[in-house]
């Protein structure tokens, strides 16, 4: 897909560090390769492990799997194979959503919140939301549920929660926050109902977040970088409208949620959601710093909680970067 690397570039890289040419196929420029080499040296020193890591990188293994982690907001999220690596776009909108929650719920009526995250993967979205908003929930309660159909993802979410919160022993005492993980397939309507009957604290879920697999199979070869294609789980990547269909036909139709934020990769997915939501729902699209459509959000204007301020903040949050 990408043009061949010039031999002169490889030679130039080899003069700087013998491992540098190995990083070029993935990094493309010497500058970026040096940056990655620096991070790898920070992790592995200059031992034999560094060479092994660079060889892996040469075979397009994602840097996050080699180093085992990815910074996500102020959290450090552990990454393992078979679980999708958190993307910066997701980081951006999650932080934005957290700020929107902080700004609109801190001043207004104090209330208990329930947030549910679908297709959690590493658990990065719910964990970042907890970390950013935890100060609001000393008296009021926050319940966060993280749902995924992969056992490996569930294990990793638990690990990430423990590393980022449970290590600090006073987290449980200081904040009124509960975090649970659930393993089931959300496309299965019966299991969703079962989950709802057991886990609903408020009448409805306040915010539903999701980063579903949204790459249509037809784009997989054409538009997906080889590193993603070869090493990240197809389970977390391939999909088109299934999850947006599920949003409309299960979560909204059975009136389980008051608002949602779904990540997406294409405007056709926005159109699908906007055309199919009931008329009492207000929807909108946000763009990331790279000016690509990234999220579709919506809220029920007849819901007891007023979400207009929250989602106005969410929409405006990116104004610095556009």
């Amino acid at each position, binding site marked *: 897909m990408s043009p061949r690397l010039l031999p002169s570039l490889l030679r130039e890289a080899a003069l700087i560090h013998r491992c540098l040419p190995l990083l070029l196929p993935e990094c493309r420029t010497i500058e970026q390769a040096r940056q990655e080499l620096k991070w790898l040296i920070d992790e592995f020193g200059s031992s034999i492990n560094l060479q092994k890591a660079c060889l892996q990188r040469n075979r397009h293994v994602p840097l996050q799997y080699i180093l085992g982690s990815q910074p996500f907001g102020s959290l450090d999220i552990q990454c393992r194979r078979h679980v999708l690596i958190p993307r910066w776009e997701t980081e951006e909108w999650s932080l934005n959503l957290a700020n929107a929650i902080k700004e609109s719920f801190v001043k207004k009526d104090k209330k208990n919140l329930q947030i549910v995250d679908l297709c959690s993967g590493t658990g990065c979205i719910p964990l970042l939301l907890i970390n950013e908003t935890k100060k609001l929930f000393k008296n009021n309660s926050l319940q966060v549920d993280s749902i995924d159909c992969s056992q490996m993802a569930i294990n990793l979410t638990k690990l990430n929660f423990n590393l980022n919160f449970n290590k600090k022993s006073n987290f449980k005492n200081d904040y009124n926050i509960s975090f649970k993980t659930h393993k089931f397939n959300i496309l299965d309507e019966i299991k969703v109902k079962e989950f709802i009957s057991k886990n609903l604290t408020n009448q409805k879920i306040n915010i539903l977040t999701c980063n579903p*697999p949204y790459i249509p199979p037809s784009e997989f070869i054409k538009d997906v970088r080889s590193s993603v294609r070869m090493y990240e789980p197809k389970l977390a990547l391939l999909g088109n409208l299934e999850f947006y269909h599920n949003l409309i036909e299960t979560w909204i139709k059975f009136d389980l949620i008051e608002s949602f934020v779904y990540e997406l990769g294409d405007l056709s997915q926005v159109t699908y959601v906007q055309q199919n939501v009931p008329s009492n729902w207000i929807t909108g699209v946000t763009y990331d710093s790279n000016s690509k459509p990234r999220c579709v959000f919506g809220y029920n204007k007849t819901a007891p909680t007023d979400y207009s301020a929250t989602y106005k903040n969410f929409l405006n949050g990116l104004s610095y970067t556009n």
Partner: protein
Amino acid sequence: MMLRLGRIKPFLRDSTLIKTASQIHIRCQSVVSDLTTFSETSHSKELPESLIKKAQLYGKEFLDLEQKLSKGENFNVDDQKRFAKCSSVAETLKIYQDYLSELHELNEMITMDPSLKMEAEIEIQTKIPKFNEISNNLLGKLLPTHPFADKPCIIELRPGVGGVEAMIFAQDLASMYMNYANAHRWKYHIISQQLNESGSGILSSVLSIDEPGSYDRLRLEAGVHRVQRIPATETKGRTHTSTAAVVVLPKLADDSEKSTEAYERTFKPDEIRVDVKRASGKGGQHVNTTDSAVRLTHFPSGIVISMQDERSQHKNKAKAFTLLRAKLAEKEQREKEAAGIAARKEQVTTTDRSDKIRTYNYPQNRITDHRCGFTVHDIPGVMTGDKLDEIIDATRTYETDQKAKDLLIE
């Protein structure tokens, strides 16, 4: 053969240099002191009447505060600070006046009784250095302190003219400041550093020195530093002149995300733009890029900051905002000072970043500060951070003198 010569040469050069260097050093120092202070050896450095009056005001306030304290009234932190300041000024003033009256008595003695002239003069000579020290001390206390004096600082280094040699010199300066921080046991860290592609020298380096008060100590380091030496890259043994620019900024907040986030929100959306370097394509799940570079543009001031060292875009942004904050604060302070100078409507030599402030001459093993004319003949000592204090002290004394002159004009 080459190797041996290489070993012997510097040895010879050094041993001869040490002798001459120490002689020159002494000579230069005496010249400098003649220039900067009012011929220190023979005359006492008596402070003008207006300054003494100012000091006496502090003395009065000290007495008032002391009475307040003895009554046992409420004493808050601000009062306490003020009290500490007043008491130290009053104390120094008292010692100053004691010494001054002693000197006057001795002078009188000379006119009254010529037979004692010799002894009195000897005593005056012994007393004067101590007196001048106290007088300088008092002067320092009377001058207004810099508004960011108690802040930690950020040092930014960039190579100037001179290509790779300038990059190497910038790196030398960076390590000098790190050594200096080490010597003082100050905490420091590198905020960002971009190495030269070919491996030697730096394109830019930003250090953070986390010790409170380090800004006051190091702010006079800002300016263009010039080096004269035979570069490592030179094949024909010619001496080159290169420069590197040093910018010292007050660090107003730590670069944790929490504090910068609040700061970020003080800007209007149209004042600032955050750019992230992103390749074309669909983004999102399609790619797992590791490029986390962030570029910050502040439109009203035209400041642009790029940051790419961290793996997290979020942290890069936080660091960029820390740097922006420091730059804006420093700019504002500089503008204020400039306005003050313009108000007096006269050309005053300042100790700001005018142009080249210091020369590092390696063949002569000499460092000269051009603002105060101070010279040290020990480049290795300065570069390891041990002797940098000597230069800093000299420039500070010079600045104090300059400020005192300004104060008198006012």
